[in-house]
C-alpha cells in the first residue's frame, strides 16, 4: 500500500487548497470551479477508501448537477463577491465580468 502515500498527500493538498480557494476568491465563478475540484478530490478519496458507491454518487452529483445550478445562480445574480466595486481592492480583469 506504499504507493498510496504520494497520491494521498497530493489529494489532501488539492482538496483543501481548492476548498480554501473557493472560500477566499473574489470571483464567484472561480469559487464554483473550485467546488468542482473539491468534489473531484473527494470522489478520488472515496475511491481510495474503497467506497465506489459513494464515489459514483459524488461524481454523478458534484460534477455536473451542482455545478450547473451554481452557474445558473451566478448567471441570475452577480459574479462578484463584493457588492461595492470601489471597495474591492482586487478588481476583476476586463473581459471577466459579464
Amino acid at each position: 500500500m506504499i504507493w498510496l502515500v504520494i497520491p494521498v498527500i497530493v489529494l489532501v493538498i488539492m482538496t483543501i487548497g481548492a476548498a480554501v480557494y473557493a472560500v477566499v476568491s473574489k470571483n464567484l465563478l472561480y469559487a464554483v470551479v473550485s467546488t468542482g475540484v473539491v468534489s473531484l478530490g473527494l470522489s478520488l478519496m472515496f475511491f481510495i477508501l474503497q467506497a465506489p458507491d459513494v464515489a459514483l454518487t459524488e461524481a454523478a452529483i458534484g460534477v455536473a448537477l451542482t455545478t450547473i445550478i451554481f452557474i445558473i445562480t451566478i448567471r441570475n445574480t452577480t459574479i462578484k463577491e463584493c457588492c461595492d466595486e470601489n471597495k474591492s481592492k482586487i478588481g476583476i480583469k476586463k473581459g471577466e465580468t459579464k
Partner: protein
Amino acid sequence: MNEFLTISFYGTAIVLMLIGLYAALAKKNLLKIVIGLSIIDSGLHLLFVAIGFISNGTAPIFSPEVLESAQQMVDPVPQALVLTAIVIGFATTAVALALVIRLYKHHNTAAIDEIKNLKW
C-alpha cells in the same frame, strides 16, 4: 502507514468542515455561504466514509473475484448513510440557491449586510 492515513483523511475531513464553517459564518455573500454549507457537507461525508474504512479492505460488493474475502470488507453502513446524506445535501443546496435567486431579485444584491428587512 496507518497513522499517516488517519491524519490525512480525518484531518482533511475536519479541515474541510472548518473551512466551510468559516465561510458560512464570516462571509457576507449569500452564494459564498451556500458554498460553505456544501463544503461542510463534503467534509462530513468524507468523515463518514473514513470511519467505515478497514486497512487492506475492499468494497462490500461480492463480485466473482472476491467471493471468499468477506472478512476484509469495509463497513457498508456508513457508506449507505452517506448516500442518503449526499442526496439530502444536494436537495438543501438546490433550495438554498433558489432562495438566493429570489433574494437577489428582491433586493438586487447578494450581500448579506444589505438584506436587512428582518432583524438578523
